[in-house]
Structures are given as C-alpha cells and as structure tokens.
C-alpha cells in the first residue's frame, strides 16, 4: 500500500523530478478535421513520465478529439504525433495499448452486465493450456484482479457481480487499476471526476497522484480547474479546438487557470454587458488585464 500513503494530500502537491528529457508522448501542431469541420488545430502537448499533464476546456473545446487521437480511435489529419520520439499513426486502440498508452474513458469502457473480473481482463485475458483446449485462467484472473483492486484500496465482496452495480467512483478506480496493471506508461483519463461527488473525486485524484508516483505519464482531461490544480504539473487549456494556454505549474495560479477555463477574455467583455443589467454582481469577475498567464498560441478562437 506504499503508493496510497505517498498519495496523500501533501505529496500530491509536490513536484516529482523529471524522469527523462524525452517526452513519452508528444503532439506538435496536431489537428483533426472531420470533413470540413476542424475539431482540433495546432495543438502541442508533451507528456513526461512521472508528470500529470492537465488538459482543460469547456464542452466542445476538442478535449475528446485530442484523446481519441492519442488513444488510437481517430487519426490526426495535420501536425505530428510522436511516441518515444518516433512519429506514429495508430489505426486501432490496440496499437496504442501495445505502446503503453491506456485510456480510461468517460464511459469507462466497461461492459456493465459483465462481472468485475471479466471487465478487468477484457481484451487481455489470461489463458492456460495448449491451443484447442486453451481456456481462461479464471482462478488466476480473479486472484490478480482482487489483489490489484485491494492495492488500490478498492475492496469488493464479490468479483462476480456485474460492474454496472458498482458506484461511479468504484468503477472509475477499477478502470484506472486495470490500466495501471496492464503496464500503461501513459494514462489518459477522460473527465474522471465529472460525474462524481466530492469524496469520490478525492479518491480518484488520489489514484492519479499514485499513478504519477509510480512513474506514469498522466494526461488528465477535466473541466474542473480545482481538480486539475490539485494534481497537475502542466496545464493546457483548449478552446474551440485550439490551444489557449500552455503553462507549467510554476507559471500559473489557480485563479488564472480558473479564469482561462471560464472563457477568460470573453468573460471580461461579458462583464461590461452584465454591468448594465441590474442585480448582477460583477465585482468579482476579472478584468482583461488580470489574465497574465503566458498564452501558447495567438488564438483568435476562430473555428
């Protein structure tokens, strides 16, 4: 249970030293068009081992498209996508998995009616015996799943219960435990805290920190800047398919992050309009000048 102890709140905020100069995954000016709709454009991103890279953005900002490219569900149409410094183009999620890139999707990629242990090993089942009689090694799978889940602090009475009967936080943790067990070097988490309560979110954030302590590169997609700031080492804000902000932890404060996330400059101009409506308190809203964080690309927010 070492990882859980180091994953307490104090350790979460401590930066880990870089494990290597070369990023595990790198995007250089990557983009994706669906027909004549440009969902993503000019996005650059680096994922280092033992670091959490947070990708923030409102709905429709292109977060999902970004992770679909990295996880192999879609291919990028512009720019470069490098894994270990080599350009790649995945045609199936299997290829991404083979490179050690595991994704925990928003819908968790679990099959609700299947038992927990079958879900844990789905797609990478353990087998025994020679070919015509090759069969699932059920004992070993159940034992391993139980051990891995307990190591993550998830105690389940019955691994035979359908995973659909677990709570959202438990399911999330099973999905993370699965990715970590299968030798993920890069863990992509798609809005893991979106549907969770405060306490459950805390549990999930603890596992993100635990995964980082194990030396994994984590891409944490979220639209909650508070959650991001608790575990993040680097922050990228997407807006309308382009990169609005790319800053490391030392260069950005939670307040700035929140402002960028909330629409930044747009919100400042909205403030003037709102000021003319009676009953709307605009004192707390930021002025345009407050947004001092470095901006990665000169995004005009065109789509």
């Amino acid at each position: 249970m070492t990882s859980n102890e180091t994953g307490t709140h104090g350790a979460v905020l401590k930066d880990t030293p870089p494990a290597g100069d070369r990023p595990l995954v790198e995007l250089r000016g990557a983009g994706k068009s669906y027909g004549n709709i440009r969902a993503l454009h000019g996005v650059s991103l680096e994922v280092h081992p033992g670091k959490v890279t947070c990708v923030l953005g409102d709905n429709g900002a292109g977060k999902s498209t970004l992770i679909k490219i990295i996880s192999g569900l879609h291919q990028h149409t512009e720019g470069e996508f490098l894994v270990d410094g080599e350009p790649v183009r995945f045609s199936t999620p299997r290829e991404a998995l083979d490179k050690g890139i595991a994704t925990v999707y928003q819908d968790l990629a679990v099959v609700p009616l299947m038992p927990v242990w079958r879900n844990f090993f789905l797609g990478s089942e353990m087998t025994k015996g020679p070919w015509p009689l090759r069969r699932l090694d059920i004992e070993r799978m159940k034992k391993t799943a139980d051990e891995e889940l307990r190591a993550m602090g998830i105690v389940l009475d019955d691994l035979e219960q359908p995973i659909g009967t677990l709570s959202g936080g438990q399911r999330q943790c099973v999905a993370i435990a699965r990715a970590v067990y299968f030798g993920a070097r890069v863990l992509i988490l798609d809005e893991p805290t979106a549907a969770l309560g405060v306490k459950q979110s805390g549990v999930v954030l603890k596992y993100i920190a635990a995964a980082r302590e194990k030396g994994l590169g984590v891409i944490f997609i979220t639209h909650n800047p508070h959650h991001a700031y608790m575990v993040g080492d680097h922050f990228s804000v997407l807006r309308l398919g382009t990169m609005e902000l790319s800053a490391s932890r030392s260069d950005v404060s939670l307040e700035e992050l929140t402002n960028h996330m909330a629409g930044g400059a747009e919100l400042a101009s909205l403030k003037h309009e709102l000021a003319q409506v009676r009953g709307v308190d605009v004192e707390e809203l930021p002025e345009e000048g407050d947004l001092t964080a470095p901006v990665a690309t000169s995004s005009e927010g065109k789509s």
Partner: protein
Amino acid sequence: MSMTQQAAPAVDTPPAPGQKQSDGRTRQRPLALRLLARPEVGVFLGAVAVLVFFLFAAPPVRDGSSMANILYQSSTIGIMALPVALLMIGGEFDLSAGVAVITSALTASMLSYQLTMNVWVGVIVALLVSLAIGAFNGWMLVKTGLPSFLVTLGTFLILQGVNLAVTKLVTGNVATDDISDMDGFTQAQKLFASTFEVGGVNVKITVVWWLVFAALATWVLLRTKYGNWIFAVGGNKDSARAVGVPVTFTKISLFMLVGFGAWFVGMHQLFSFNTVQSGEGVGQELIYIAAAVIGGCLLTGGYGSAIGPVFGAFMFGMVQQGIVYAGWNPDWFKAFLGVMLLGAVLINLWVQRTATRR
C-alpha cells in the same frame, strides 16, 4: 522515492490473505435469488413445468419412444438455436437463418446430383456457401453499421427468392431430385441423420450432436477468450473495441457460426428426406430466435447462456409433439408458442429485476 522511478505494473504488496475485509455494503443474497439471476434457471423451470404438464395431459408422452421423438424434434430446433443464441448474446440476430438451412441443403443436393459427383463434394461446397452467407451478413453489418434486422432481412429475401428460382431453373421442379442412390450417401447419412438404439428406444443422432454442440458452446462462452469477447461486443461494442477486443472479427465469426449451424441442419434434412423442398424454411428463423429468447438470452445482447436455449428448444419440441400426443388440434401449436414466449420474456424480466437488484 525509489518507487517513483519504477515502471508499471504495480507491484504493491497486497494485504496478507486472511485479513480479508469486506466493504460491508453488500449482503450475501440468498442462494435461491442468486440462482434465479442465472439466465438459464427461469427456462429450466419452464421446461420442467411443460414436461410435467404433458406427462399428465398426454399419457403417450410417458413412453420412451415418444420422448426420443420429442428430443429429436427439439434437436432440429436446438442445433440452430445455439449459434443464434450466441449471435444474440453478441448483440445481433439473423433473420436469414431459416432459409439459409434450405439454401445449404439445396446447394449440396443439386450440385452432387447435376454433376453426378460424390455427395461429399456437395456437402463441402454447401458448407463453404453457408459460411460465405454468414460472412456476407457479418461483413455488411460491420461495414455499413446498419442494424442486423435490415441487413439480414435483405439476405432472407434474397435467399428465399434464389432458393425457389434456382431450384426451378435447374430441376424444373420446386423440389430437388432424390439423391439416396448416389456415392457417399450412406456414409453422409450416418453422420447427419442416422438412428441408434439405447435401451430399446431409437434415438436420432441429431440429439447427440445437439447436446455435444451445446456443451461445446457453453465451454466456449464461459471459459475462452472468444466467449468473453461475445459478451463484450454484445454488452457494449464501443467499450469492447476501446480495450482491444477485435469486434469486427467477433461479429463476422458469429454470423459464420450461424452459417455453420444452417449447414448442419440443412445436411440433416437432406440426408433424412433425400430431397429438399425449395420453399421451406420461411418462419423457422423466428422459431430459433424465440428459442434463444425463451432460453434467457437478452434480445439487446450482452447477456445469456448456451444451456438456456437447449431448454428453450426442448420446450418447443415438447409442446409441438405434446399437442399431437394429447390428441389436440396441432393448429394450436403456434398460439401455445406465443403464450410461452411472452410468459418467458415476462419471467426473465421479473427475475432479472429482482435477482440483480443491489
């Protein structure tokens, strides 16, 4: 900090066995409830009920040879219900399964007769044709993303028309010629349509095949990777794909498995009746689907068993023959089936709700 540089997978020491803690939120449900949650238990009880009913209502059923006859009737439905059930667990269904049986039989019969070849040539070619039909269904489904209802409805109509038209074109008749005097016929008949004696009762070999296939399907479904994939593609196709399950392969191979079943039943019909009526098979596909649904398979996929459809098919065979033995008008058969189907679906629904409730 030495832990931080370590690569995955996790090697945390698990808590020592013995201090097994429970999360304290789930009570162990009573055994009866847990049993009821199994997909095949409801249909098993149903099959027992139907059997007991006819044992009382139709005294001839108590005879061993009648029971063998009932099992034979069940097996011809049951052999097809198995792959149809697997396909259903995999999230699809196949409306062309009924006529595909006849297509297979026609292919084997006409090919060997017209070219005067050994019947085994026809049998092998029929197998290839059946597998090809299955592969076509699966391929169309995967490529177009259309629902299997539409794709296989198309195949159903095509095959129905082709069966009739080609048979008329080749033989000038609606039935194929008798192939019982051709090379290899007796040999093939032994495999597909022979009878053997057990304790003074003549049992058709299809009953044995039915049970062998059922055992095999159960093993594959619950104990192999492929079985795991079937549940996964039926339960949530996108999730399955995302974790690396070969969804396309699984779906296409399931349709080909239905093709294999159609071939086997087609060969049985050919070698037990020597000729094939080209217009038959229409409506059978719904019987297979009904047997699978009565057997506890979820029409929407992801849930079911291979044993359930065995009992489902047995219920069908039992009712079909039981009505005759009871001396009732056999026209009641379909009405009886409809009631059974609705009853089974309602029971399944109720059982799933009560037994899987948290």
